[in-house]
């Protein structure tokens, strides 16, 4: 419950204060969001599995975001930023869908 509250508060804070981010980071923010989404779904599944650990969640969240941004940054420097973004999105997308399926099994027992 407190997590959902945190999500709502975070969205509201972001919309209200519109924190300015450096232009250089703007390209990587969407990728970072998708990576964060993967970490959140992973955490939700772990919570439903009963093995949730907030330290693991925080670490996986931060590392997911950083690694995804780093990969795309590296791709940009090598001239294959678009392809690497696609690759990262595909892999993270598969993971998100699989986690979502596991969560669905937990919630609906189906």
């Amino acid at each position, binding site marked *: 419950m*407190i*997590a*959902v*509250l*945190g*999500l*709502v*508060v*975070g*969205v*509201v*804070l*972001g*919309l209200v204060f*519109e*924190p300015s*981010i450096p232009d250089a980071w*703007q390209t990587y*923010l*969407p990728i*970072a*969001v998708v990576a*964060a*989404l993967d*970490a*959140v779904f*992973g*955490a939700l*599944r*772990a919570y439903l*599995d009963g*093995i*949730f*650990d*907030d*330290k*693991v*969640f*925080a*670490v*996986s*969240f931060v590392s997911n*975001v950083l690694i995804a941004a780093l990969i795309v940054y590296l791709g940009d420097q090598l001239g294959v930023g678009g392809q690497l973004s696609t690759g990262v999105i595909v*892999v993270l997308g*598969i*993971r998100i869908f*699989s*986690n979502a399926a*596991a969560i669905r099994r937990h919630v609906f027992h189906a």
Partner: protein
Amino acid sequence: MTAGARATARPDHGTAYTGLLTEIMSSTLDADYQAAADRARELGRPRRPPQRTAAALVVLLFGMMLAVSALRTQQLRPATAVERSQLVAQIHAREDRLDALHSQVSALEVDVAAVQTRAADRREIQRRTDAAVTSLAAVTGAGAVTGPGVRVVVSDAPGAVGSPSGGVILDSDLQALVNALWTAGAEAISINGNRLTSLTAIRFAGRAITVDYHSLRSPYVVEAVGDPQTLPARLLETPGGQAWLGLQQNFGIGFDTQPVDSLVLPADPILELHHAQPVVPR
């Protein structure tokens, strides 16, 4: 490495790739959760009560990222739309310009066609004028002519020069001969290669006959372009011809008329008017 070894190596690659995909598909749960849970169980520690605050902070961060990212995309959209509408406006402007240029091209094509027609007309006029000039040049003596005709060779009576016997051809005799040839139907006449024109005078100057200011001596060769069949006979029928027959018989003056198949009469090299102005018909 041999070909056989490579062949055996290939299936391994296939399984490796399949394994990678399977790995991605199956092990979606971060193994860290399981590892942390296992370690906690091994240490016999009771599971730590999940500290909701930390998780809430992380989720809050996630929410902010989500909001900011969405917001930025929203903010960028108007700029893209403006760019797009500008491009569309540019396209329309260029299309209008293209249409204008197209209509200009068609207008110019019409102009070009008109000018070409006019040029063709001018060329036709030019051609007719050239033809007229050429035929007029033949008539006036400004241009050389060729054609059949007669050659009349007249000469002073032998031993007549310097004697008062009357055996010398006078300028009036030559004038009479030329007039007789014109009367008989000659179309162009030359005397000793001097073409007769409307400006040509035949007169005595000193003791010689000058034609077109060239002094000539006997014999005088008068060439006339005309019908070689009728010209000699008609020449003799004219009063001038009769007079010349008289001269031939009475004074021994040479008078020899011969039809010629092809004569070439040169142009008068100096044929210009100083006072007379052509009247241009309107």
